[in-house]
């Protein structure tokens, strides 16, 4: 039969080992937690930066879109303006206005 004292000694030793394991586990857990927290922070920061960059890009793209939209509109207008038929119509309109103004003036006499 084993000596009770030796068993207790072994138990105490085991308890010590378990406690040591436990404290190691806690330390490791804490480190892992800290590391994960740090990574989370870094990730959040990166995400934030990325969002900011994205927001700026978005703003820039929207501005570009607006500019292109405006250019499209202007080019349509220009196309209309250089359309020979429209030019002719405008010219004739101006001429007719001038002739009408003169006719009216003449009519008043």
């Amino acid at each position, binding site marked *: 039969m084993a000596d009770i004292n030796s068993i207790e000694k072994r138990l105490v030793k085991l308890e010590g080992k378990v406690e040591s394991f436990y404290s190691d586990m806690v330390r490791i857990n804490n480190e892992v937690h800290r590391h994960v927290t740090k990574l989370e922070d870094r990730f959040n920061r990166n995400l934030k930066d990325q969002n900011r960059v994205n927001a700026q890009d978005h703003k820039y793209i929207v501005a570009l879109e607006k500019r292109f939209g405006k250019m499209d509109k202007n080019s349509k207008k220009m196309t209309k303006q250089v359309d*020979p038929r429209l*030019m*002719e119509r405008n*010219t*004739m309109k*101006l*001429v007719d206005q*001038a*002739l009408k*103004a*003169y006719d009216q*003036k*003449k009519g008043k*006499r």
Partner: protein
Amino acid sequence: MLDPVAIVANGADRGHPIERFQPIWHSAAMRIARSAWADCGLAVFLQMDVPYGATSSGRLSDDAVQLLLETGPKSQPCRFLEIGAGSGIFAKLFLDALKAQAPEIYDTCTYVVTDASAKMLESQTEYGVLSEHAAHIETVVFDASAPWPDEFNAAFDGVFGSYILDSLPIDILSIGESGIKQMQTRCTLPVAHEALQDALRIPGSAHLAPFLPLAKNLQIQTRHIEAGPLPFEAALPLAEGEDTPLVHCHGALACMENITRALRPSGFAMLSDYGTLAPREPSEQIEFQSFGASAAAAVNFHQLDSWFTKGKTSYLKPEAEEGHLITRVLYNGDKGDLSELVDLLFGLARQQALRLPVEAAREMLRANAFEIARQLYGKAMALQPNNWSLAEEVAELLLLGAKDYKDAISLAEFGLSLNPLAPNLHRIIAQARYHLEDIPGAASAISTCLRLSGASPQSRLLQAQIQVESDEIEGALISIAKGLAMDKEADQREALVQLQNEILVSISKTAGEDLLADVNRTRAVDGLMPRP
């Protein structure tokens, strides 16, 4: 010590002075330019060195008749005076319109045609400009800037002047708070010229005509000095503010004062010229316009307007106006009689109605839109049916754009019925007949055109083309040579050289064929003969 500003200024002092500093009107440049008028006849107009289409197109002549009719019935035969009549076309078209619209006035009227150049009046007679109205014409050599004779006092129902105010004495001044300064000029030449210097010492300008070729080499130095007594000083603005250039048109003022004295009761004067309507800006420089060898400065209408609105004679101007051809009317009667008509005839509404269709038509021609141009020219012609200058422009469109050769001929012939001396109208007829293969007709028209104005490379090219069709090869080559010699701008050079090459190739080809025919005349046909 070296003065960098003086070093830079040195260049301005370069050349040999041919006169002392003096007011611009008396400078060698202006005197030689004036001598051009004394020496020339109608050629300056026919070659378009002086653009007379604007004032002698028929539009202003028609307007003058309208003004005359508006001034009411006349109790005595009418007398009209034209100063600086130049081509005589204004007078011809005025009398044409008067004959058509008021034959009773025409039958008894007299039109006194005057010009400072005797040669110009002789030239008018030589070309027969006014021959249709000879019974109503008196010609007098008269310089409008000289004192007016007493017999002109209250002698005229109408006085007309186109592009004459700009040829009367002026001074160029600089007016500001530093006082009134007169611009003086001194002409220099790259090399000394004693003969010219001697001639300049003799007063007057007519004798300077031999020196006209030197005019382009004259350099003009200017300086401003405090002005002495000036004619019409009361017509100058107050000397205040920044120094500002001003054309002091004292010659025009004096001439218009003389005109007011020359008008009978209800008489009117119609004066048209190019000029400025507002005071100049301090930074502006006054420039002269050159017409051939002659020179003129824009009339300061702002000054004339300020001066004459205070006068006794009614001075009429439109309420609003634009452009460069400005018209003023002096009327020896109640202003109210004519003010509406003056505004209608010379105001903005009419100016735009006359200008826009023509400008738009030209724009359409540049875009090759011939049909819309034709429509616009139609509108323009409806407003000015008696404008030969416009008829010429439209005939050119019909000829080159629409290729309506018969219509081009009809319109050009109509233009010639108004102004028989327009060389371009004859050229258009010649070109249209050439396209219609009426070669004798084309030859006759181009010969008239060249008799009027021989210095047109375009006409010489056409003459050569017509001569080629008539087998006048030698004549064609001579016409090409003349065209090349006068084509200073090289506008027709390519076409002339191309035609010359075609003629030379054709000569060589014919000569080659003749030679071959000659050396191969004898043919031995023995082998081909059937054996007996």
